[in-house]
């Protein structure tokens, strides 16, 4: 049992990393990784939204929607996630206005982050129970946070590198993301 949970967690964090392997949530991954500080905040916000979102989504799809109202899934998930994001936004504005400002548009955009909607939908698809859903959400969130923070720290270093002009900025960031993805491909087969 514990081993299974561990595998779900490891699987989502490393092997099926939501950003680098599933290629979801690239928008904040590229957008909020210019500064380490901001990326850590974004990671924390996304982790919170993802975990709470996947838990509540499970509850809704299981107890509220059941099998007959399955067509409401996407819609209701979006509503719930939007609510959680709104809450996070208010909380951040109160507790850390600078962070709130520097996250800017990406904070409300967590709502439309495909990773955040993708995880609950994948949960339903793979018939996870409540704990599994939570773990899957948490794992996805940790995976997202991990690569986001790693990527941000790398980009901070690249800022000072003598990168040829045509590759400066987003171009080198995309290449770097590609090479990171290469590393994560090596985990293939670790967890089925």
């Amino acid at each position, binding site marked *: 049992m514990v081993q299974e949970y561990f595998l779900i967690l490891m699987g989502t964090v490393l092997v099926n990393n939501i950003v680098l392997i599933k290629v979801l949530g690239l928008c904040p991954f590229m957008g909020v990784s210019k500064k380490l500080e901001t990326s850590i905040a974004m990671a924390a916000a996304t982790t919170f939204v993802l975990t709470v979102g996947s838990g509540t989504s499970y509850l809704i799809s299981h107890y509220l929607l059941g099998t007959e109202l399955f067509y409401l899934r996407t819609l209701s998930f979006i509503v719930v996630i939007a609510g959680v994001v709104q809450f996070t936004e208010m909380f951040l504005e109160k507790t850390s206005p600078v962070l709130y400002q520097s996250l800017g548009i990406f904070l409300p955009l967590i709502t439309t982050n495909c990773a955040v909607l993708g995880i609950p939908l994948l949960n339903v698809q793979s018939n996870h129970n409540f704990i599994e859903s939570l773990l899957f959400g948490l794992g996805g969130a940790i995976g997202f946070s991990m690569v986001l923070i790693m990527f941000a720290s790398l980009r901070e270093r690249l800022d000072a590198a003598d990168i040829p002009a045509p590759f400066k900025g987003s171009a080198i960031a995309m290449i770097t993301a590609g*090479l990171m993805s290469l590393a994560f*491909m*090596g985990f293939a087969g670790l967890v089925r």
Partner: protein
Amino acid sequence: MNRSPYISEAPSVTSIMLKVMLALVPAIAAYVWVYGGGILVTLALASLTAIVTEALMLKLRDRPVRLFITDGSALVTAWLLALALPPLAPWWLIVLGTAIAIVVAKQIYGGLGNNPFNPAMVGYAALLISFPALMTTWPAPLALAEFELGFVDQMLFIFSGNLPAGVALDAVTSATPLDYLKTQLTLNHSLQEITQSPIFGTLGATGGELVAAAYLLGGLYLIQQRIITWHLPVAFLAAIAIMAGLFYLADAGRFADPALHLFGGATMLCAFFIITDPVSGPTTPRGKLIFAAGIGIMTYVIRVYGGYPDGVAFAVIFFNICVPLIDAYTQPRVFGHDK
């Protein structure tokens, strides 16, 4: 004006790179002894590609070509990649891998000193993902091969893919020990049965163990010359030995003994030549220990549980990504500061 200090006592970058190449010579000799002279062709090809692509990129980037070609870093990358590739890989695979290493992993990031990833490992991993079959086709050590290819035969094979008439591919290739171990374990053979195979030699792999010992020798030379510090190789080898030892103690029937993991695969090459790349590695002493131990553990996990027979390249790139974070959190205590 004002360029103090006016005196210096430093080896040049070129001399450092030359020493690294010198340290690789015993391993190359062992390679020739074990697998035949084909490796020399591979090395020459990789070197040529590296110099041409590096010069081309420097030209495009409007940087002094001669200055950076003579620093020798491109050649080191080429040699490391060539030594990591299967000895009889086709010529285009070598050219492609070296070009990826030099162009994508090194020059696009700004060349010497700016690349966040180990160029040789990026080239290797890209090839492994793209051409898994070719990358796992290793020639059998000459001692075990049914048919012994001469130097000319090997060269022809590299350039045209043709073997001498009447020789089957199987006759000159064999699975590497790590690869063989993995496939046989999935077929539910016990470890005792598997290691009966002649490819396993005394320590880890027939032939391979000799090459590994040669790397070890070269690595010790580098430590003696203060080109690399002990932190990285020791932490890396210790991590692999401890992981392998623990698993071996837990279930000797399913997990190979530490010696195989230390002397098989690219362990020794990695310990002394790959993870010791200063540019893409961490700089603090504690950071080096964490970095190397992490690579060691991850390499072992990929070897045992992953889809690839050897995980060194992936583990190195993964921890290259972590380097800025590792460095940031392992800053040593500065004079006059409390911890």
